[in-house]
């Protein structure tokens, strides 16, 4: 369960400073290239029914490793049984550059996740978006949304609209959402309960995690 040494977290917890993140990125530059090709292992297409599947559950395991961090989530399936989902993500180096720290996701956290399904397992997938609920009632939740800066693809329009109006997590490097086309990033947003409810109402039919 939660390590109390980390104290209060989410919006109250300063994440990495821009300088630390810049240093991290410089040192890790040669490791940032994809370890393997997503499309070989996952249905890497949000337009495919298996490319953006929503699961909800409780985190039961975390591996903050390179080249791909892993999370395990207990999910109650349609028959009432519990499946253990394995979720692969970016490298721990990359996640830290997005503002993650050891307290971002911990065992016991309630989460909603959009995954691209594994081509080899029924309960495994690639992390796309994740909502990590605050640990107490009225606590701020963190929403990480996948986004490609500078992309001309229409699929990112709603995300762009949202990330430009919602508060980013404290300590994260300001993103250049309209800059040159770059690699996929996870934008971190800090949302209290009213803000989350408002976004659900506004984006339910446009951003999958708000369905």
């Amino acid at each position, binding site marked *: 369960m939660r390590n109390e040494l980390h104290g209060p977290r989410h919006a109250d917890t300063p994440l990495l400073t821009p300088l630390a993140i810049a240093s991290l990125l410089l040192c890790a530059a*040669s490791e940032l290239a994809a370890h393997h090709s997503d499309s070989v292992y996952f249905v890497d297409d949000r337009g495919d029914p298996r490319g953006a599947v929503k699961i909800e559950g409780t985190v039961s395991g975390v591996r903050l490793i390179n080249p791909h961090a892993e999370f*395990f989530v207990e999910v109650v399936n349609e028959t009432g049984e519990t499946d253990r989902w394995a979720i692969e993500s970016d*490298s721990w180096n990359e996640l830290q550059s997005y503002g993650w720290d050891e307290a971002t996701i911990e065992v016991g956290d309630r989460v909603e996740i959009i995954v691209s399904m594994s081509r080899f397992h029924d309960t495994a997938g690639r992390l796309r978006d994740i909502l990590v609920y605050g640990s107490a009632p009225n606590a701020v939740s963190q929403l990480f949304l996948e986004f490609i800066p500078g992309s001309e693809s229409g699929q990112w329009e709603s995300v762009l609209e949202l990330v430009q109006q919602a508060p980013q997590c404290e300590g994260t490097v300001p993103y250049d959402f309209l800059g040159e086309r770059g690699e996929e990033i996870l934008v971190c947003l800090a949302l209290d309960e009213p803000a989350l409810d408002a976004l659900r109402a506004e984006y339910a039919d446009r951003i999958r995690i708000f369905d």
Partner: protein
Amino acid sequence: MSPFRWLPACLGGLLLVPVAAQLPPGVSEFSGIYRPAGLAVQPCGYNEWLRRSFETDRFCLGSDEGFPFIEDGLAAWRDYSPIEDPVLRCIESFPRSAMRGRPLRVVLGENVTEIAYWFNRQWHTREVHMNGSPATADAGHTDFGYSTGHWSGDTLVVETTHTRGGPMFNDHKQSSPEARYTERFWIAPDGRNLLMDIAIDDPLYYSRPFLLNRQEWIAAPDRPLSQTECTPSSIWVEPGGDDEE
């Protein structure tokens, strides 16, 4: 006090002085540490140096276009299960190790030249036998195979056999264990950087020899080396997962 008290210090100092290799006359010494120009090394426009310099075999990840497959090679590619890929277990064997954007270290030698790739917090070193001695009859197949080297003018030519075969790229196009690779290393026109190409001759899988990769390596003697550790994926390697880290 002994008049030779300075001797240990001097001898110790001598040990730190690199001994210049006895290279053939006219051959340039390019021992050093390099980093790849560009993060991605496969063609299809990712390799900046390739794009602006050379006409070469072009191929794209995921497509067999431009790849001179014969039937067995195509079948080996299509039948390969990606979750068997050694990189999921943090193993990078040749020729893939040379094409994944890792820092490169070359130590030229008279009898043995070393070519090493920095990955998972250590140098993974290939020995290149410069005296022409062939692999023994009972030589096994290893991650880096058996390499011999010679000089062709100012170019170091390395021939490699006895590799394990397996995926060469992230899309898992295969080489067979019988493949023979020819690498060439030479100094770039700027006199500082290194140029390299790798050709493969693998009659079990391909109809003709062809160029796998061309790459410029930037001299980077002082660049910090990543201390990132590679941890095998439990999702693919141990389905069900080990969640303790």
